[in-house]
Protein backbone atom coordinates (compact mmCIF):
# COMPACT_ATOMS: atom_id res chain seq x y z
CA UNK A 1 0.00 0.00 0.00
CA UNK A 2 1.36 3.43 -0.91
CA UNK A 3 1.86 5.97 1.84
CA UNK A 4 -0.96 8.02 0.36
CA UNK A 5 -3.31 5.04 0.53
CA UNK A 6 -2.22 4.34 4.11
CA UNK A 7 -2.86 7.95 5.11
CA UNK A 8 -6.25 7.95 3.38
CA UNK A 9 -7.31 4.76 5.12
CA UNK A 10 -6.34 6.15 8.52
CA UNK A 11 -8.05 9.45 7.87
CA UNK A 12 -11.20 7.78 6.55
CA UNK A 13 -11.73 6.48 10.08
CA UNK A 14 -12.25 10.10 11.10
CA UNK A 15 -15.19 10.46 8.71
CA UNK A 16 -17.60 9.63 11.52
CA UNK A 17 -18.32 12.87 13.44
CA UNK A 18 -18.52 11.13 16.84
CA UNK A 19 -15.18 9.47 16.25
CA UNK A 20 -13.72 12.74 15.06
CA UNK A 21 -14.90 14.44 18.24
CA UNK A 22 -13.29 11.73 20.36
CA UNK A 23 -10.06 11.98 18.40
CA UNK A 24 -9.95 15.74 18.86
CA UNK A 25 -10.66 15.45 22.56
CA UNK A 26 -7.92 12.88 23.19
CA UNK A 27 -5.51 14.57 20.82
CA UNK A 28 -5.92 17.97 22.42
CA UNK A 29 -5.57 16.71 26.00
CA UNK A 30 -2.15 17.24 27.54
CA UNK A 31 -2.27 13.91 29.36
CA UNK A 32 -3.74 10.49 28.66
CA UNK A 33 -7.52 10.16 28.55
CA UNK A 34 -9.60 7.32 29.99
CA UNK A 35 -12.83 5.95 28.49
CA UNK A 36 -15.09 7.64 31.04
CA UNK A 37 -13.62 11.09 30.46
CA UNK A 38 -13.71 10.66 26.69
CA UNK A 39 -17.33 9.45 26.79
CA UNK A 40 -18.33 12.40 28.92
CA UNK A 41 -16.59 14.90 26.65
CA UNK A 42 -18.29 13.42 23.59
CA UNK A 43 -21.66 13.09 25.32
CA UNK A 44 -21.99 9.40 24.53
CA UNK A 45 -22.08 6.15 26.50
CA UNK A 46 -18.93 4.56 27.82
CA UNK A 47 -19.32 1.46 25.66
CA UNK A 48 -19.86 3.49 22.49
CA UNK A 49 -16.82 5.61 23.33
CA UNK A 50 -14.77 2.44 23.91
CA UNK A 51 -15.84 1.10 20.51
CA UNK A 52 -14.85 4.25 18.65
CA UNK A 53 -11.63 4.76 20.62
CA UNK A 54 -10.49 1.27 19.72
CA UNK A 55 -11.27 1.94 16.04
CA UNK A 56 -8.97 4.96 16.29
CA UNK A 57 -6.27 2.77 17.84
CA UNK A 58 -6.65 0.20 15.04
CA UNK A 59 -6.21 2.97 12.50
CA UNK A 60 -2.99 4.02 14.22
CA UNK A 61 -4.31 7.46 15.15
CA UNK A 62 -4.34 6.85 18.91
CA UNK A 63 -2.09 4.80 21.19
CA UNK A 64 -3.03 2.92 24.31
CA UNK A 65 -1.46 2.36 27.68
CA UNK A 66 -2.76 0.68 30.84
CA UNK A 67 -2.53 2.22 34.28
CA UNK A 68 -4.32 1.95 37.58
CA UNK A 69 -5.98 5.29 38.12
CA UNK A 70 -6.67 4.65 41.81
CA UNK A 71 -2.99 4.54 42.70
CA UNK A 72 -3.55 1.22 44.41
CA UNK A 73 -1.71 -1.90 43.37
CA UNK A 74 -1.61 -5.58 44.13
CA UNK A 75 -4.61 -7.91 44.53
CA UNK A 76 -7.92 -6.10 44.85
CA UNK A 77 -6.70 -2.97 43.13
CA UNK A 78 -8.87 -3.75 40.13
CA UNK A 79 -7.99 -3.91 36.46
CA UNK A 80 -5.76 -1.16 35.14
CA UNK A 81 -7.62 1.47 33.13
CA UNK A 82 -7.16 1.70 29.38
CA UNK A 83 -5.79 5.14 28.57
CA UNK A 84 -5.56 6.83 25.19
CA UNK A 85 -3.22 9.41 23.74
CA UNK A 86 -2.47 10.71 20.26
CA UNK A 87 -0.12 8.54 18.21
CA UNK A 88 3.23 10.06 17.28
CA UNK A 89 3.28 9.82 13.49
CA UNK A 90 2.13 12.52 11.09
CA UNK A 91 -0.30 11.89 8.28
CA UNK A 92 -0.72 14.26 5.41
CA UNK A 93 -2.82 13.93 2.32
CA UNK A 94 -3.17 16.51 -0.37
CA UNK A 95 -5.37 16.28 -3.44
CA UNK A 96 -3.76 16.91 -5.85
CA UNK A 97 -0.34 16.04 -4.41
CA UNK A 98 1.52 18.99 -2.87
CA UNK A 99 4.76 18.84 -0.95
CA UNK A 100 4.94 22.10 0.95
CA UNK A 101 7.00 20.33 3.64
CA UNK A 102 9.85 19.79 1.15
CA UNK A 103 9.71 23.43 0.13
CA UNK A 104 9.53 24.48 3.79
CA UNK A 105 12.62 22.47 4.65
CA UNK A 106 14.61 23.92 1.77
CA UNK A 107 13.52 27.45 2.57
CA UNK A 108 14.41 26.98 6.24
CA UNK A 109 17.81 25.61 5.30
CA UNK A 110 18.58 28.64 3.16
CA UNK A 111 17.21 31.15 5.69
CA UNK A 112 19.34 29.49 8.37
CA UNK A 113 22.44 29.50 6.16
CA UNK A 114 21.88 33.14 5.32
CA UNK A 115 21.45 34.05 8.99
CA UNK A 116 18.09 35.72 8.34
CA UNK A 117 16.56 34.95 11.77
CA UNK A 118 15.68 38.59 12.38
CA UNK A 119 14.05 39.03 8.99
CA UNK A 120 12.02 35.84 9.46
CA UNK A 121 10.88 36.96 12.92
CA UNK A 122 9.84 40.35 11.55
CA UNK A 123 7.83 38.68 8.77
CA UNK A 124 6.21 36.28 11.25
CA UNK A 125 5.32 39.15 13.58
CA UNK A 126 3.73 41.13 10.74
CA UNK A 127 1.81 38.09 9.47
CA UNK A 128 0.64 37.27 13.00
CA UNK A 129 -0.55 40.80 13.55
CA UNK A 130 -2.41 40.94 10.23
CA UNK A 131 -3.92 37.52 10.92
CA UNK A 132 -5.04 38.59 14.39
CA UNK A 133 -6.65 41.76 13.10
CA UNK A 134 -8.52 39.86 10.35
CA UNK A 135 -9.42 36.85 12.47
CA UNK A 136 -12.81 35.19 11.96
CA UNK A 137 -12.60 33.41 15.31
CA UNK A 138 -13.30 36.44 17.47
CA UNK A 139 -10.76 38.17 19.65
CA UNK A 140 -10.01 35.59 22.34
CA UNK A 141 -6.40 34.42 21.97
CA UNK A 142 -7.26 30.99 23.41
CA UNK A 143 -9.86 30.30 20.72
CA UNK A 144 -7.66 31.64 17.94
CA UNK A 145 -4.73 29.50 19.02
CA UNK A 146 -7.11 26.53 19.19
CA UNK A 147 -8.35 27.23 15.68
CA UNK A 148 -4.74 27.29 14.50
CA UNK A 149 -3.99 23.87 15.89
CA UNK A 150 -1.90 24.80 18.94
CA UNK A 151 -4.22 22.87 21.29
CA UNK A 152 -4.02 25.34 24.20
CA UNK A 153 -4.61 24.23 27.79
CA UNK A 154 -4.38 25.97 31.15
CA UNK A 155 -1.57 25.00 33.47
CA UNK A 156 -2.37 27.11 36.53
CA UNK A 157 -2.22 30.70 35.31
CA UNK A 158 -0.16 29.80 32.27
CA UNK A 159 -1.64 28.95 28.89
CA UNK A 160 0.44 26.18 27.35
CA UNK A 161 0.27 24.80 23.83
CA UNK A 162 0.06 21.04 23.58
CA UNK A 163 0.78 20.91 19.85
CA UNK A 164 3.60 22.39 17.82
CA UNK A 165 2.20 23.06 14.33
CA UNK A 166 5.76 23.26 12.97
CA UNK A 167 6.99 20.09 14.66
CA UNK A 168 9.27 18.53 12.03
CA UNK A 169 10.76 21.87 10.97
CA UNK A 170 11.20 22.98 14.59
CA UNK A 171 13.00 19.72 15.24
CA UNK A 172 15.47 20.38 12.43
CA UNK A 173 15.86 24.15 12.85
CA UNK A 174 14.87 24.85 16.47
CA UNK A 175 16.41 28.30 16.92
CA UNK A 176 15.08 29.54 13.60
CA UNK A 177 11.60 28.02 13.68
CA UNK A 178 10.87 28.47 17.40
CA UNK A 179 11.98 32.10 17.12
CA UNK A 180 9.66 32.52 14.14
CA UNK A 181 6.79 30.91 16.03
CA UNK A 182 7.23 33.12 19.11
CA UNK A 183 7.32 36.24 16.93
CA UNK A 184 4.17 35.04 15.11
CA UNK A 185 2.29 34.55 18.38
CA UNK A 186 3.48 37.91 19.72
CA UNK A 187 2.23 39.51 16.49
CA UNK A 188 -1.09 37.71 16.81
CA UNK A 189 -1.58 39.06 20.33
CA UNK A 190 -0.69 42.56 19.15
CA UNK A 191 -3.23 42.34 16.33
CA UNK A 192 -6.10 41.02 18.44
CA UNK A 193 -8.31 43.40 20.35
CA UNK A 194 -8.50 40.74 23.08
CA UNK A 195 -4.75 40.09 23.06
CA UNK A 196 -3.40 43.38 24.31
CA UNK A 197 -3.01 42.30 27.93
CA UNK A 198 -1.32 39.02 27.09
CA UNK A 199 2.35 38.17 27.01
CA UNK A 200 4.07 35.26 25.28
CA UNK A 201 7.49 33.82 26.02
CA UNK A 202 9.53 30.73 25.44
CA UNK A 203 9.10 28.30 28.30
CA UNK A 204 9.55 24.87 26.75
CA UNK A 205 8.27 21.69 28.33
CA UNK A 206 9.62 18.31 27.20
CA UNK A 207 6.88 18.12 24.55
CA UNK A 208 4.62 20.46 22.64
CA UNK A 209 5.08 24.06 21.55
CA UNK A 210 7.87 25.97 23.33
CA UNK A 211 5.75 29.11 23.79
CA UNK A 212 3.71 29.79 26.93
CA UNK A 213 1.27 32.68 27.38
CA UNK A 214 0.05 34.62 30.34
CA UNK A 215 -2.91 36.95 30.59
CA UNK A 216 -3.08 40.04 32.73
CA UNK A 217 -5.04 39.76 36.00
CA UNK A 218 -8.67 38.78 35.63
CA UNK A 219 -8.36 37.18 32.19
CA UNK A 220 -8.25 33.62 33.45
Amino acid sequence: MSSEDAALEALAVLGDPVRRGLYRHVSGSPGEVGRDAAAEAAGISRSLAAFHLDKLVEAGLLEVSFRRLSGRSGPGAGRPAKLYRRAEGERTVSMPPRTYDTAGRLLAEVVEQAGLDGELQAAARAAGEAGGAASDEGSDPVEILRARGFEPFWDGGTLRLHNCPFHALADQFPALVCGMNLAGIEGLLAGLTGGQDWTAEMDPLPRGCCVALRAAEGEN
Partner: protein
Amino acid sequence: MNDFHLAQVNVGRILAPLDSPQLADFVAQLPGINALADRAPGFVWRLVDGEGADSTSLRPENDDDLLLINCSVWESVEALREYTYRSDHLKVLARRREWFERLADFHLALWWVPAGHRPTVSEAMERIALIREGGEGPEAFTLRAPHPPPSGVPTA
Protein backbone atom coordinates in the same frame (compact mmCIF):
# COMPACT_ATOMS: atom_id res chain seq x y z
CA MET B 1 27.58 4.65 33.65
CA ASN B 2 28.89 5.48 30.18
CA ASP B 3 32.59 5.22 29.46
CA PHE B 4 32.27 8.14 27.07
CA HIS B 5 30.86 11.62 27.44
CA LEU B 6 29.82 14.05 24.75
CA ALA B 7 32.02 17.13 24.26
CA GLN B 8 30.64 20.20 22.55
CA VAL B 9 32.39 23.26 21.13
CA ASN B 10 30.81 26.28 19.57
CA VAL B 11 32.50 29.45 18.33
CA GLY B 12 30.70 32.67 17.52
CA ARG B 13 31.82 36.09 16.41
CA ILE B 14 30.02 38.83 18.34
CA LEU B 15 28.72 41.78 16.32
CA ALA B 16 30.20 44.31 18.75
CA PRO B 17 32.44 44.23 21.84
CA LEU B 18 31.03 42.63 25.00
CA ASP B 19 30.82 45.99 26.80
CA SER B 20 28.81 47.60 23.97
CA PRO B 21 25.07 48.38 24.29
CA GLN B 22 24.39 45.96 21.43
CA LEU B 23 25.67 43.02 23.48
CA ALA B 24 24.20 44.19 26.81
CA ASP B 25 21.21 41.82 26.74
CA PHE B 26 23.41 38.86 25.92
CA VAL B 27 25.89 39.67 28.68
CA ALA B 28 23.03 40.17 31.14
CA GLN B 29 21.51 36.77 30.36
CA LEU B 30 24.76 34.83 30.40
CA PRO B 31 25.02 34.14 34.17
CA GLY B 32 21.46 32.79 34.27
CA ILE B 33 21.90 30.62 31.21
CA ASN B 34 25.21 29.23 32.51
CA ALA B 35 23.64 28.49 35.91
CA LEU B 36 20.85 26.69 34.08
CA ALA B 37 23.44 24.52 32.30
CA ASP B 38 25.27 23.79 35.55
CA ARG B 39 22.13 22.27 37.08
CA ALA B 40 20.76 20.70 33.88
CA PRO B 41 20.32 16.90 33.95
CA GLY B 42 23.34 15.24 32.35
CA PHE B 43 25.61 18.29 32.55
CA VAL B 44 29.23 17.35 33.34
CA TRP B 45 31.53 20.34 32.83
CA ARG B 46 32.00 23.60 30.97
CA LEU B 47 35.04 25.59 30.02
CA VAL B 48 35.66 28.70 32.12
CA ASP B 49 38.39 31.32 31.96
CA GLY B 50 40.71 32.50 34.72
CA GLU B 51 38.00 34.28 36.68
CA GLY B 52 35.90 31.15 36.70
CA ALA B 53 32.42 32.38 35.78
CA ASP B 54 32.32 31.80 32.02
CA SER B 55 34.54 31.59 28.94
CA THR B 56 33.88 35.03 27.43
CA SER B 57 37.42 36.26 28.06
CA LEU B 58 38.96 33.41 26.07
CA ARG B 59 39.84 34.08 22.43
CA PRO B 60 40.37 30.84 20.52
CA GLU B 61 42.02 32.68 17.62
CA ASN B 62 44.75 35.16 18.54
CA ASP B 63 44.02 37.73 15.88
CA ASP B 64 40.26 37.80 16.39
CA ASP B 65 39.07 39.90 19.33
CA LEU B 66 35.38 39.19 18.67
CA LEU B 67 35.50 35.41 18.38
CA LEU B 68 34.11 33.71 21.51
CA ILE B 69 34.30 30.05 22.40
CA ASN B 70 31.97 27.89 24.42
CA CYS B 71 32.88 24.33 25.26
CA SER B 72 31.19 21.80 27.54
CA VAL B 73 30.83 18.11 28.32
CA TRP B 74 27.55 16.19 28.72
CA GLU B 75 26.56 12.67 29.65
CA SER B 76 24.64 12.12 26.43
CA VAL B 77 23.41 13.64 23.18
CA GLU B 78 19.92 13.73 24.68
CA ALA B 79 21.10 15.73 27.71
CA LEU B 80 22.75 18.33 25.49
CA ARG B 81 19.73 18.47 23.19
CA GLU B 82 17.30 18.95 26.08
CA TYR B 83 19.34 21.83 27.49
CA THR B 84 19.98 23.45 24.11
CA TYR B 85 16.46 23.28 22.70
CA ARG B 86 14.03 22.48 25.52
CA SER B 87 15.09 24.89 28.26
CA ASP B 88 15.27 28.66 28.69
CA HIS B 89 18.48 28.45 26.68
CA LEU B 90 16.22 28.46 23.61
CA LYS B 91 15.25 32.05 24.43
CA VAL B 92 18.83 33.14 23.97
CA LEU B 93 19.37 30.87 20.98
CA ALA B 94 16.43 32.38 19.10
CA ARG B 95 18.06 35.82 19.45
CA ARG B 96 21.51 34.65 18.27
CA ARG B 97 21.55 36.94 15.22
CA GLU B 98 21.08 40.04 17.38
CA TRP B 99 24.48 39.34 18.93
CA PHE B 100 26.43 36.92 16.76
CA GLU B 101 27.55 37.08 13.17
CA ARG B 102 26.48 34.26 10.91
CA LEU B 103 29.57 32.18 10.20
CA ALA B 104 29.73 30.75 6.70
CA ASP B 105 31.50 27.60 7.84
CA PHE B 106 30.83 25.06 10.59
CA HIS B 107 30.95 26.89 13.92
CA LEU B 108 30.27 23.94 16.19
CA ALA B 109 31.36 20.35 16.65
CA LEU B 110 30.52 17.45 18.91
CA TRP B 111 32.77 14.50 19.72
CA TRP B 112 33.06 11.73 22.28
CA VAL B 113 35.64 11.91 25.05
CA PRO B 114 36.51 9.36 27.75
CA ALA B 115 34.45 10.14 30.87
CA GLY B 116 36.47 12.49 33.08
CA HIS B 117 38.33 14.12 30.18
CA ARG B 118 38.26 17.93 30.01
CA PRO B 119 38.89 19.31 26.51
CA THR B 120 41.31 22.20 26.05
CA VAL B 121 40.68 25.20 23.79
CA SER B 122 43.18 23.95 21.21
CA GLU B 123 41.69 20.47 21.25
CA ALA B 124 38.21 21.92 20.74
CA MET B 125 39.41 24.11 17.88
CA GLU B 126 40.98 21.04 16.24
CA ARG B 127 37.51 19.47 16.15
CA ILE B 128 36.12 22.54 14.44
CA ALA B 129 38.98 22.37 11.94
CA LEU B 130 38.20 18.68 11.43
CA ILE B 131 34.53 19.23 10.64
CA ARG B 132 35.39 22.19 8.40
CA GLU B 133 37.84 20.08 6.42
CA GLY B 134 36.09 16.75 6.22
CA GLY B 135 32.45 17.46 7.03
CA GLU B 136 30.46 15.61 9.65
CA GLY B 137 31.76 12.24 10.79
CA PRO B 138 32.29 10.15 13.94
CA GLU B 139 35.23 12.39 15.01
CA ALA B 140 33.28 15.65 14.70
CA PHE B 141 29.55 15.86 14.21
CA THR B 142 26.47 17.98 15.02
CA LEU B 143 23.16 17.48 16.81
CA ARG B 144 21.45 17.20 13.43
CA ALA B 145 23.20 13.89 12.77
CA PRO B 146 24.77 12.57 15.99
CA HIS B 147 27.15 9.61 15.98
CA PRO B 148 27.00 6.94 18.71
CA PRO B 149 29.78 6.76 21.32
CA PRO B 150 32.72 4.49 20.42
CA SER B 151 32.31 0.89 21.49
CA GLY B 152 34.73 -0.54 23.99
CA VAL B 153 36.73 1.00 26.77
CA PRO B 154 38.46 4.37 26.32
CA THR B 155 42.23 4.23 25.96
CA ALA B 156 43.18 7.84 26.69
